[in-house]
């Protein structure tokens, strides 16, 4: 079973992602957070396989800045930056981020997560 942490401040979007992941039985959402501090706590506690991270989250620390701290809290986690901003270049430049997907390509989310977690 692959544990996933969702870091997303929009409840509708969080629900959307959760529902998308639910169709894959080998995955479970083990934690959710709306800001960087909670996200780091959750990651440290649950040591997930995957963190789906939004950039525009609550609080002073944005997703891009939170990524290295999340990686430090859960070194085994793959971090997927999932944002409505065009942040491909920024994500590429940030070593702690393993993949980036723009939100309007939500149909790509499940295939990408499968690929990242090597789920058949």
């Amino acid at each position, binding site marked *: 079973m692959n544990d996933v942490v969702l870091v997303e401040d*929009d409840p*509708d*979007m969080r*629900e*959307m992602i959760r*529902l*998308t992941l639910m169709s894959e039985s080998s995955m479970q959402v083990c934690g959710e957070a709306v800001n960087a501090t909670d996200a780091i706590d959750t990651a440290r506690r649950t040591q997930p396989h995957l963190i789906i991270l939004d*950039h*525009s989250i*609550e*609080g*002073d*620390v*944005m997703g*891009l*800045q939170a990524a290295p701290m999340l990686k430090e809290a859960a070194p085994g986690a793959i971090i997927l930056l999932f*944002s*409505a*901003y*065009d942040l491909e270049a920024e994500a590429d430049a940030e070593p702690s981020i393993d993949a980036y997907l*723009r*939100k*309007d390509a*939500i*149909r790509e989310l499940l295939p990408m997560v499968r690929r990242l977690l090597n789920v058949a």
Partner: protein
Amino acid sequence: MVRRSWVAEDAGSKEGIALKLIFEISRNLQFVLFVLVAVLSLLRWHQGRSPAQAWVAATFGSIGGVVLVARFLSPDPTGTWGDTYARKALVAILILFPYFLFRFTASLRPHPRWYHRAAMAATAAVGLSIFLFRTIPARGAPQPPGWQAYLLLLTAQWVVLSTVSAVVLWRGGDGQPTVARRRMRFLSLGAFGMALALIVGVAAPGAEITVARLVGQFLGLLSIPMFLIGVAPPSALLAVWRRPELRALQAAERGLMTAEAPEQVAAAILQHATNVVGGRAAILVVSQAVVGAFRLTDDELVGAMRAEEPTSEGPDTTIRIEMRDGFLAVFAGPFTPYFGRDETDLLAGLGAMADLALERTRALVREREHAESLREFVAIASHDLRTPLTVIKGFTALMDERWASLPDADKKGYVTRIDRQADQLSRLVDDLLTISRIEGRALKSRPEPVSVACAVEDAIEGNVEARHGVRVDVADDLGVTADPTHVQRILRNMIANAIAYGVPPVEIDACRVPGGVEIRVSDHGPGVPDAFVPQLFEKFARLDKKLSTATKGTGLGLYIVRGLARAAGGDAWYEPTGSAGGACFAVRLPAARVEATDHGSVDARKAVG
């Protein structure tokens, strides 16, 4: 008179006649030139009254007066009382020439005090002692020893004072711009020439026209054009002399054309500005900050910042060229105010061009900032449009795929979410449309009386976060005349702004003012930083424009507030609140009469849009 002097002298040989002719021509020329230089220096003084101008006018005015009056006296003393006293008075006034010249140079660069005292004492002594003589010996007549001694004294006074002035002027010319340097050198040569002419004249006292007398005459004659050029140089000469300075100015102008930052403006002009007036150092101050200094020490930097008016303190004259948002100051030498007036004007021209260049750099910065905000806005707007669209698309796809298997309760929940996101999307699109209407002056407005209390209540109702923690203090009988949907928009944006950026509790109050009603929305947050206040109501204004910061929003809210308020004939502004410490946003709208507590009569619940 001229002819009589010819006849009186021996005109035997041809050479004698030629010498006399030359002598007379040069004497007449000398007369004309002296009067000319006197008139010009008096005119200059009349145009620009300064101590230096006054001393120049006194110097040349006195000598011009002497030659003019002497013209009406007979060539030789008549021996009458009037003639004798007139001659004595003329000599006494003539004595003042080197003294006035000395005072002129001293007015530019002060001498030690004892110099002044000695000069004044010597001049007074020589000037007054002429009255001790009963008569003035005629040219060629025997000179008593007392008179000879007096002539020696007079020559010494003249030569010493003229030499001091000439040396000051000559040496002062070093490092001056071309025009000033040459004017000073010419004046210096003129003073030397006059002194030499006097020496030769005293040494050759005979009545006959000798070569020595002619040389003296020529020296005197030559020195006047020198004075003339020094005092009032012809414009053709100025144009030629000024070429190096004009070239420097052109170089500065070229630098200004490409300058993109205040520092580049400073780099382009400071050295040239200094050289144009033969200054020692220069400084450019913009927005009360030094953006560039040329050859200036730290102490002088502090002094320069304080310099308010061009002052002449000590050996320096600060030429200060005012600009829209700062000034250019050049530390010039003591001779600049008199000899460098035209150069100072050139400097003022350069200052004006630098001012324009600075304005351009400011415009460039604004343009870049605007382009940057536009880019940020596009990024934020795309994000804000994409987010609800993604959710809508996601839930519809989900329902499409699993329609049969989904419980009804879930379907209902998904539809609610889709609806909420569609509202969000609709608000953003509304904002964008409103902005384009405000800017295109195509805002559709249907003004009608709106109860402020009702409108505030509705605005709070429309904002989930505002339902708690907003204190309202609005009298029921306050009304405004505006489009109700616009009033809603204004209030909702102001409330949303206070909730997003301020600290609760948010307070809303309204009061009647002449010509309208003012509604204030204030909070208890840290307030708006002073530097950001001027941009608050601008488009895309967000305190921190970087995507990497946590501040959300497109930065259109307050822009729309002001646009709608102004369209209704009112305005919107920011007030730093006193007691609460937080931010206060105020809007004024035209007043209207409404029924107290009759909320139902005002339909402020129309859809926003």
